[in-house]
């Protein structure tokens, strides 16, 4: 290679870096800076009454271990995610299967099904709160019609009913998201393979296991990851419906962090909570991505 060619190659490399540099800078600015700031704040002592920015060591992290309310909120979050995610996935899959068939008004029905996904979670929560209201809500009214008498069901107050109530709102809003993604994935499954399997006499379960599932798995994985992360950060719907109550029965990690940060102004402690959440999610996401890489 001539000197001129080498120089040209060097210039091209410099140009490449120069072109991506602004994007990298912006990403670092909006991603890395808050992360570093968060980490720093978590080892300081910033409260509503003052910002002591001297190094306080792991004092806030040690406090995390003694904070029963935090662990309860974390457990609520994990439990809620573990229940809601499979329900959304299964319902979304069944709906997608249904809409793979040629149905009358298919496009219109799909648009209607997708409506909950496009509204704000705060609005969804408020809507469900009204739906479940004892005085004005249609849910109790309809149950009353079936029961043949007035019923008094306090969905957002009764400790045994409050989680199902929140779960219904969450599943109602986000199942369509799963449905849409899975419908797209199922539409792209190779028809020839399906027909060949049918000709070979493969059963429905075998076709699903051997052909459909491998074909849609990457998409399912991404959908589960996105929804899983969303569910782990769930705030709006629950806040609007119950504000974390009764007591702290429906308090999730995001609600607790919000309370600490923006109502009590325990800034450093809430930074430690946020850092804990970041670590937990990072471990889960990295492990999941690695698993997919291995599978590929």
């Amino acid at each position, binding site marked *: 290679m001539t000197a001129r060619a080498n120089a040209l190659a060097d210039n091209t490399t410099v140009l490449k870096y120069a072109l991506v540099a602004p994007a990298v800078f912006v990403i670092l600015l909006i991603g890395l800076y808050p992360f570093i700031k968060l980490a720093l704040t978590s080892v300081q002592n910033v409260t509503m009454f003052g910002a002591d920015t001297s190094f306080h060591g792991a004092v806030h992290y040690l406090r995390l271990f003694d904070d029963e309310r935090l662990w309860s909120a974390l457990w609520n979050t994990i439990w809620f995610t573990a229940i809601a995610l499979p329900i959304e996935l299964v319902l979304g899959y069944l709906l997608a299967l249904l809409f793979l068939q040629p149905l009358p008004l298919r496009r219109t029905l799909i648009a209607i099904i997708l409506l909950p996904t496009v509204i704000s979670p705060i609005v969804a929560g408020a809507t469900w709160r009204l739906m479940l209201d004892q*005085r004005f809500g249609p849910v109790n009214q309809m149950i009353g019609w079936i029961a043949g008498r007035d019923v008094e069901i306090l969905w957002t107050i009764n400790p045994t009913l409050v989680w199902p109530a929140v779960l219904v709102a969450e599943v109602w809003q986000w199942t369509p998201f799963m449905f849409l993604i899975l419908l797209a994935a199922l539409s792209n499954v190779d028809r020839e393979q399906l027909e060949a399997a049918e000709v070979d006499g493969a059963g429905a379960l075998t076709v699903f296991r051997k052909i459909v599932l491998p074909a849609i798995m990457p998409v399912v994985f991404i959908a589960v990851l996105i929804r899983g992360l969303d569910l782990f950060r769930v705030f709006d719907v629950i806040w609007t419906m119950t504000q974390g109550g009764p007591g702290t029965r429906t308090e999730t990690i995001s609600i607790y962090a919000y309370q600490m940060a*923006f*109502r009590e102004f325990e800034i450093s402690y809430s930074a430690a909570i946020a850092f804990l959440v970041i670590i937990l999610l990072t471990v889960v996401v990295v492990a999941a991505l690695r698993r997919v890489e291995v599978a590929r």
Partner: protein
Amino acid sequence: MTDLRSVRRIFAAGALSVLALWPAAATAQSAADTAVEAAQQYSGITLNVLYEAGLQPLDPKNFTGPLWEELTGIKINVIESPVDQIFTKTMQAHLANSGAYDVLNVIPNQMPDLALAGALEPLDAFVEKHGYGPELDMIAPVYRDNQMKVESTIYGLPDDGDVLILYYRRDIFEDPDNKAEFMEAHGYELAPPTTWQQFSEIGQFITDKYAPDIYGAGMLRQPGNAQYLFQERFRVEGGKFFDEETMKATVNSDVGVAVFEALLAENDFMPPGVEQWGFIEAFNAFLAGDIAMTISWPPVGRWAAGYGKGTEALNWIPETTVADTIGYALPPGGRPELAVGFSLAVASGSRNKEAAYLFAQWMNSEEISLQRVQLPYALRDPFRTSHFASEEYRGRWPTAGDYLDTLKAGAETGLLDLSLIQTDRYEEGIRQAISRLWGGEDPQTILDDLAAQWDELTERIGVDKQRRAYLDWSGKPNAYPN
């Protein structure tokens, strides 16, 4: 229909004529005039005013803001926030040193936290400089003495006479058949209850006779509202929040448990689902005639009487069916909760502190505040001695005099909201406890947990530090019934 602009014009004309005549009539310049004169040097600036979202900001948007601009050349920009976010917004602006707000609406029991955090500007020098002391002294003592200072420094001008009083249907209470039946059943006159025992008996009597058309009572039960009823009743029944020596929480005493049990038992004679009721639900039910008694904030009393009917901003209010029959009384125990309230304050981060103070002084002054508390759409309630006595106000509707007399009585005997360092965390505990109570948990267990939660919080804040704050609060004349 009366629209906002015409209401504004009427009140603006009234205020302007008062302002125009006042100097001639008075020997000394009024506080409103003083504020206007001093503020004219700031003509051209804009003041950002933080207000509770909803009806409250219609006052500065439609009445005081435009009038102030006309008088001084200072624009008023109203920034709204839900009431439970006001503290957060104030603190965020302070911590970020954003200077986002000039004039603040501060909930009095949050004033110590905001003052300690340095978010509020001390006002003593401004009060002195602009000669506001005499008019400040004319604010009803309960608000003036309790909702203005933190450790003898003025941080806010008490600006809202919030008090939870009893509203009842006179037609039911004065019905001869009801009176006779009740006398026979209970041996005393059917009248507004003066004890909680009477409240239960009367409520049950009315429910037994009229439900499901009319229930004996419907009360504030959403934890955010119900906590005030608990705070009031706990103290009326003799409870103390803390041991003054050790600062150990005593909210789980026998009194606390008895009050919790009584609150729960009363739900039985209230409409189904009352546990979900907040201000709007109780208000609507009372206006519709569905309940015979309720305890709530002062706007219920005037709107239920039909005051403001036809005002555009109030067209969401259902037609009142009790306008001619509403009665006013102090709640059982006679020591109503001075729940929430507002004081006008100046943000320490304001770039226009003196102008901000002058606007607050002007709004809070005798002349202007009298106009403001009569705005049909606004939520500011009478808080000055002159408001209660105002012939103009007393003539607003047939029973306005009774209404104002009851508010005045409440202002004399009312109990302050608990106020400590990090008050909201203690109140959050009460809110959670009440939501667990409605959820069916055991009162003693709930209150034991609450006490433990408070003790842990006190330990973290510092027992001595919190004890000083508590003694400062409990030493006020309206902290506990004597």
